[in-house]
């Protein structure tokens, strides 16, 4: 390693690369979801230049939307994107531990995205088995269009992504453990860093399990093994030729061992950021700070042990269902502790309602709303009714997708002055917030109702299923589905002020003050030492205390990098 680093391996370059990747994925994913909504509401609507959306094309939309959003947006942007942009500065370091490895994993992630998008253009189109890719549907080209080359491309993309994520997470972990600046003891780490740390630890542990499962699925597809295939499986009139008495359940176990921690990887950085932003604008210390650290770790730890709650009705032993139900219920406790702490932090604090603060509050609201249906779905007997209905769609979109996106917007508005030296416009930001909040609730709250009415997800069509009781059951929710589609379009349009805001702000010449939010964490000190420099010199910054030191009246504050008496401030 030389004193001079290349710009290409600078952590900010890598971070912006990740953000660009996830922005591209988010745009494509959003368009796909809107197409799904259009088709679901007006089945006869034909896509310009394409024609009617066929059932298999609808499922391809489902699969690609899920894969893009979960992997390339919710995993990449908060963890790798903002992790790289902010993390080093926040722990008083100038760089990530392994800059070249970092750039390589960003490149791999980009490559994975390109490979995934290539699935649209291979014969048969993109895969139709959802982001969970349950075999035997995903194990043979006979199972449907898109399950041939499309599925192979999908496997390759996700394998690349797993590799990249593991490497990126190793980098994050090493950076946090080893590169903390002087005085940055582990109790002084901002909760954001704890979120990144836990998420990275989970990534290291679970992405390789996914990789192993992908390798085995590949063998099943092309080498006639039967890890996930039972004997005598007859697909499309053809008896599958393979050896062994595998079981699709095995895939479910391996996949969800990855899949459940994956959703925590997506949301933990957002939780950490929300805590810090709430404290920053409420001008108070995060309530029960050490408990927040403990709950972050506990959520991650329990996250490893709850995967079976995705499989209550999948043919699992009912006792295993009970055990997983209990561990899943246990996660409700650290999550509740977090919500209580957030509520206590802002209680009667007269916070400054800036745009990042609003998005953090929105995160709290969505986390509560989406989270409260979690314990319901963790009860196997209720999951028996609600499994794979729109209720589940509503649950995970609120708590993971929408809360995750709110965390991302919060990060964007909050750190924009740090990254670009300019403040995003507040009026436009507030408009963006209001629209997004209304759109998010408008889209996903009604889905609870259609789910309770028994409507399954992943149905390409809700009409035309015949006049039997099934057709009638599905049609009862159609009026609501119309409303949901309008709300989804409203939600998408609500992002326009944001784009406008970005363009206007980047073109403006109004520069922000060095620490416009009066923040206390280390990244805001970094403007002293020219963060963008590629020179590998120590920052010379010392951390003197934990984050969020504010006086009782909330007027004065003491940032982490200032030496000085803390005696004017109340004890922690």
């Amino acid at each position: 390693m030389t004193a001079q680093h290349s710009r290409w391996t600078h952590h900010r370059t890598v971070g912006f690369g990740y953000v660009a990747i996830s922005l591209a994925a988010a745009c494509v994913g959003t368009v796909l979801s809107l197409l799904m909504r259009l088709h679901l509401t007006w089945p006869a609507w034909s896509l310009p230049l394409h024609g009617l959306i066929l059932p298999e094309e609808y499922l391809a939309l489902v699969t690609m939307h899920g894969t893009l959003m979960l992997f390339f947006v919710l995993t990449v942007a908060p963890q790798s994107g903002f992790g790289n942009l902010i993390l080093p500065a926040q722990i008083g370091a100038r760089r990530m531990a392994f800059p070249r490895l970092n750039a390589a994993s960003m490149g791999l992630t980009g490559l994975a995205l390109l490979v995934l998008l290539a699935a649209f253009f291979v014969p048969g189109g993109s895969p139709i088995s959802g982001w969970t890719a349950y075999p035997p549907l995903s194990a043979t080209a006979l199972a449907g269009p898109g399950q041939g080359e499309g599925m192979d491309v999908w496997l390759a993309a996700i394998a690349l992504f797993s590799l990249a994520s593991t490497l990126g997470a190793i980098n994050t972990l090493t950076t946090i453990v080893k590169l903390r600046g002087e005085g940055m003891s582990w109790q002084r780490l901002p909760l954001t860093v704890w979120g990144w740390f836990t998420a990275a630890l989970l990534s290291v542990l679970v992405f390789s399990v996914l990789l192993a499962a992908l390798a085995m699925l590949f063998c099943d597809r092309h080498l006639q093994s039967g890890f996930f295939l039972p004997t005598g499986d007859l697909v499309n009139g053809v008896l599958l030729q393979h050896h062994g008495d595998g079981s699709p359940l095995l895939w479910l176990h391996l996949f969800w061992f990855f899949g459940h921690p994956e959703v925590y990887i997506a949301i933990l950085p957002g939780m950490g950021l929300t805590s810090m932003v709430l404290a920053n604008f409420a001008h108070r210390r995060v309530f029960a700070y050490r408990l927040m650290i403990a709950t972050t770790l506990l959520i991650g730890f329990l996250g490893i042990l709850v995967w079976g709650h995705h499989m209550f009705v999948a043919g699992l032993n009912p006792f295993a269902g009970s055990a997983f139900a209990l561990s899943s219920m246990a996660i409700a406790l650290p999550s509740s502790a977090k919500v209580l702490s957030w509520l206590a932090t802002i209680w009667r604090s007269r916070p400054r309602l800036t745009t990042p603060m609003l998005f953090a509050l929105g995160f709290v609201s969505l986390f509560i709303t989406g989270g409260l249906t979690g314990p319901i779905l963790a009860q196997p007997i209720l999951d028996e009714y609600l499994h794979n209905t729109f209720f589940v769609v509503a649950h995970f979109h609120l708590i993971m997708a929408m809360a995750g996106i709110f965390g991302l917007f919060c990060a964007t508005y909050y750190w924009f002055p740090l990254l670009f030296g300019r403040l995003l416009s507040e009026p436009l930001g507030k408009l963006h917030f209001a629209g997004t909040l209304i759109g998010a609730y408008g889209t996903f709250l009604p889905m609870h109702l259609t789910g309770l009415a028994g409507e399954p997800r992943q149905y390409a069509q809700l009409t035309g299923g015949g006049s039997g009781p099934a057709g009638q059951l599905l049609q009862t929710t159609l009026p609501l589905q119309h409303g949901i589609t309008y709300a989804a379009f409203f939600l998408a349009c609500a992002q326009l002020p944001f784009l406008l805001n970005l363009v206007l702000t980047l073109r403006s010449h109004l520069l922000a003050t060095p620490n416009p939010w009066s923040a206390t964490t280390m990244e805001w000190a970094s403007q002293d030492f020219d963060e963008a420099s590629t020179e590998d010199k120590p920052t010379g910054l010392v951390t003197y205390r934990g984050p969020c030191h504010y006086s009782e009246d909330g007027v004065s504050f003491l940032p982490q990098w200032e030496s000085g008496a803390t005696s004017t401030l109340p004890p922690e």
Partner: protein
Amino acid sequence: MHSAQAIATGQRFWRLPVDASAHGPALDTHLLLNLWIALALLALAHLILLAGLAFRRRASRPVHTLLLEYLPLAALTLLFAFLAARAQQLWAAQRYTGASLTAMQVEVTGMQFAWYFRYPGADAAFGETKPTLVAPGEGNPLGLDPADRHGADDLVTSQLVLPAGREVDLALHAQDVIHGFSVPEMRLKQNAVPGQTAHIHFTPTQPGSYAILCTQLCGLGHYRMQATMLVLPPAAFDTWLQAHEAAAGKRGQP
């Protein structure tokens, strides 16, 4: 807007579907209890959130960690423990034990993209099936082995007809990929996984016709993989069964 119309015309799309099984009412009660609790907590949390924001005067920082964090947490722990325990009771009652020996046996087979139902016939035994013999075009979608005498009187239908008030033991199979057997009106859901048998038992209580849906993504026809469950009064069911078994028996004889 359609939804506005629907609300105005009083269309009850927000209701749970009819509950027509013996274990259903308990499940519904528990579900509604859960939903009300969730709604109450939701309202409470948002009230606290908004109230905390609305106060114009800043309060001194809350320091009573015990009071503000651990006490509500203990209460929530008790609440969740209660809900979990209640759910476990219901789950155990339904799943931990098998169907009674007198339960009616029906085999359900899912395949891309249809459900087939098989009744064992007079001998109360299912005949062997072989994947090599499957020929939907020739009226043998399940691959019944003609050499097996148990299979001769088996009745295969595409509609699940059941008597009201009698326990049913369904044996779920899948021929190709994973399917999800779901009857919302019976509060019933269980995946049919190829290569293994999943048993599920329940007692329909109200005669009527109900929707059977596939709830596990199974391919391009997933959305139209539907069937009907027809619950008949016991007498009507007996007539139906006899008529069909007679027909099936005739077909089974060479």
